[in-house]
């Protein structure tokens, strides 16, 4: 029997419209890796944020050594030895590793030499090999995460909570992280590992807590379970297997030639990118987020000006077309960030369907909106996509993430008569909704549309794509047929290691990575 570090007793947390957690109770023991498994929106992050003092639990209490303890802020949590690594790092890119680590933890005059030694020896203790004087902005995401961990270790945490830590990592970086986790618990500390990925949970955890809809459904030792049982517990139903037929793609619809684009910070976000997509073909673009994916989608949709290169849609150059003209030309775009770029959350479902076509004569009569026609269309979308809503006049913000995404799909599929760009189409969705989105993407492909699928989820890329390319630091490294690709080869490319072309430029880890992170939609 392991010794408990902290016990959560009947914790409940309510948000407007959702019960995030209801009567959640479990213990976290010393010297174990506890995995919190569940789909997006199951309440995993919320319960841990309550423990870390970021949220205030509405009911319930935390018990340490038989004493209830009050955690009102992360400061309280840290005093009790609880640290948390957020999905999105809280590092200051313009500062050094050392400065980031001591930020808020040291008073008075900083003895840089002494502090640097302390940080360095700490980093050596866990085989991190981080130079305390390097700047955050020069470090790859995987190393930035290690700095976040160091920041927690510097405070002598005994319990480290990690929220989906592998989401931003390449497969190889993930393995290094797992090694650290094992090393850390071996020293008698505890780790809570939040994840929705079964494989990595089975790999790393000693004990697994499965959550769904805010409640705990199972508290199981790893040795007593398997992936299949866990999956059933997590989803609550069997997910049908995606059937994918192969189609013959003939003519080229989209041709991108030597595309170079300057990003928002002035760096080159895309460098000399060339590819084609045929009629009825899905080109998957893999890569760690922040390597030019968003810029690729936004450039094709007309938001960025191309610096060099040309884009052809059905042999017509479209470089000079505005966003509006490209919508009219038949380019649909499901943006990675549906909350800010894809929807107006304060507007109704039907009004959101009008978002990109308000200029069309089809929807207005002397600039009066054809309300009846729009409502009919909205009813049809709700039915065809089985959107769960109280009605077409419901505000978008009242819908769940999956249903919001269905509305976006319904709109963009209609607009994208030739090309549809899907950027992270399943981010933050539960498995049922993911399956629905995937089916829609395949259906549209089978209709003969050409599809650009940008995703950081390798499983998604493999499940849907006909051909796969990898974006790294704005460069499109190799495009291969799906049959020739495997997780390992793509994973290496995602880290910028391109063995075949042996391009030394790509291996240089000091090569500046764009540090921008996409916002998290899980809420």
């Amino acid at each position, binding site marked *: 029997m392991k010794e408990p570090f902290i016990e959560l007793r009947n914790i409940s947390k309510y948000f407007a*419209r959702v019960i995030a957690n209801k009567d959640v109770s479990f213990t976290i023991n010393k010297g174990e890796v506890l995995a919190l498994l569940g789909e997006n929106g199951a309440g995993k992050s919320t319960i841990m944020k309550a423990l870390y003092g970021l949220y205030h639990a509405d009911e319930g209490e935390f018990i340490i050594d038989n004493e209830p303890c009050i955690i009102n802020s992360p400061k309280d949590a840290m005093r009790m030895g609880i640290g948390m690594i957020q999905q999105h790092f809280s590092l200051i890119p313009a500062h050094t590793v050392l400065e980031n680590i001591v930020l808020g933890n040291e008073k008075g005059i900083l003895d840089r030499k002494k502090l640097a030694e302390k940080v360095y020896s700490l980093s050596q203790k866990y085989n991190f090999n981080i130079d305390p004087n390097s700047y955050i902005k020069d470090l790859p995401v995987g190393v930035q995460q290690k700095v976040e961990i160091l920041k927690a270790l510097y405070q002598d945490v005994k319990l480290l909570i990690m929220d989906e830590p592998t989401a931003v990592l390449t497969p190889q970086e993930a393995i290094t992280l797992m090694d650290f986790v094992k090393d850390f618990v071996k020293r008698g500390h505890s780790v809570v590992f939040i994840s929705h990925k079964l494989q990595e949970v089975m790999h790393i955890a000693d004990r697994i807590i499965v959550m769904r809809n805010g409640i705990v459904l199972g508290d199981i030792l790893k040795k007593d379970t398997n992936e299949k049982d866990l999956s059933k517990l997590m989803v609550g139903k069997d997910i049908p297997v995606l059937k994918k037929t192969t189609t013959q793609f003939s003519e080229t619809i989209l041709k991108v030639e030597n595309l170079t684009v300057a990003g928002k910070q002035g760096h080159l976000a895309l460098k000399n990118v060339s590819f084609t997509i045929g009629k009825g073909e899905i080109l998957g673009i893999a890569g760690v987020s922040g390597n030019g994916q968003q810029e690729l989608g936004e450039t094709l949709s007309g938001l960025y000006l191309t610096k060099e290169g040309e884009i052809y849609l059905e042999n017509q150059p479209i470089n000079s077309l505005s966003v509006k003209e490209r919508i009219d030309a038949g380019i649909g775009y499901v*943006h990675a960030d549906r909350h800010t*770029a894809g929807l*107006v959350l304060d507007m109704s479902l039907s009004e959101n369907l009008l978002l*990109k076509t308000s200029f069309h004569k089809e929807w*207005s009569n002397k600039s009066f*909106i054809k309300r009846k026609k729009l409502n009919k269309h909205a009813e049809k979308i709700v039915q065809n996509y089985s959107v769960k809503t109280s009605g077409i006049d419901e505000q978008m913000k009242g819908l769940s993430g999956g249903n919001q995404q269905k509305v976006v799909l319904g709109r963009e599929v209609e607009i994208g008569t030739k090309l549809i760009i899907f950027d992270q189409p399943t981010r933050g969705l539960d498995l049922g909704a993911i399956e629905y989105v995937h089916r829609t993407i395949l259906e549209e492909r089978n209709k003969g549309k050409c599809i650009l699928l940008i995703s950081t989820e390798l499983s998604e890329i493999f499940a849907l794509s006909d051909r796969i390319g990898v974006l790294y630091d704005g460069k499109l490294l190799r495009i291969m047929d799906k049959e020739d690709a495997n997780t390992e080869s793509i994973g290496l490319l995602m880290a910028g290691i391109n063995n075949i072309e042996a391009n030394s430029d790509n291996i240089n880890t000091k090569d500046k990575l764009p540090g921008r992170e996409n916002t998290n939609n899980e809420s």
Partner: protein
Amino acid sequence: MNPKIKDLIITTFLSILFGMILSGLLLLFLDKNPITAFGKLFSFLFRDGYTFADIFVKATPLIFTALAFAFTFKASLFNIGAQGQFYMGAVAALSVSHLLGGIIPGPVALIIIFLSSLLAGGVWGALVGFVKAKFNANDFLVSMMSVYIALAFMNYLLRTVLIESKHEYPQSDPILKDVFLPIFVNGTRLHTGFLMAVVIAVLCWIFLYKTTYGYRIRVVGMNPIAAKFAGIEAGRIYILAFLISGGLAGLAGFTEVNGVQHMLVQDFNTTIGAEGIGIAILANANPIGIIFGAILFGALKVGGSILGQTSGIPSSIIELMEGFVMLFVILSYYVRRKLELRREILKLKSEAEV
């Protein structure tokens, strides 16, 4: 009834009540009995038809300036320069009235005067939208400062080209009777401008909620990023919203000059811009709600000035009351949000128990 609407009505009513109570308590410092003071205030309002009708006379320009603020507010823009656009509209109304009065038939002249004040206010407002779109200038500051330019411009004209024939005071000659806005209740000052204001408020509502232009204004207001991805150019929307907003404020100049004052004097009606903002916030920027808000403020103005004249209570008590009501209305946004949150959590809890 929809609990949200119920909350809205109750909290707005309470805000007005609290505002009155608090400003009434201040009367105690003046050794006046607030209850008798308020009793007088209301009895005055219904004293005679003339006074009662004056409520709507006072409400008319307030409807316009409140609409002006609300219109840009829907696009997440801030036009706090309605005062200046009002002056520009007033100057245009007066100049055109002098030019055309007696030369062409009154009704035709009135239509041209209407359009010129709309245009004058609109162009002055659109300027703010233009610098916002072109140079990303702060609309709040630019519109605020544009008031002083307009005021100085009007005062300059009143001391030069528009000055009265006697050249004595900085004010204009009165306009001819045939370009007066017709009175529609005999024996009062209530002119057709009030009906015009009500119709225009309804039109504003239709424009915002029924047309694609209004739709796009709201999209830019609620989510400018999504608007960009939808190919909606925010810059054009800024200019359009400010053009309409300025035009609405300009119309206040038309109804004041041709409906009430029949002339222009230096520094006149210095508070209707600010009061318009207050009314728009009180009405949650809803054009229909603005009509009622403006009538309330109109009543306070009329009652306040009579109170000052007859009972020795300074009429500035009304300004205090307006200020307190605004404060409570702003606080009520927070209260409503809390109430809604609590309702939803209760609903969730009861669902969870079933």
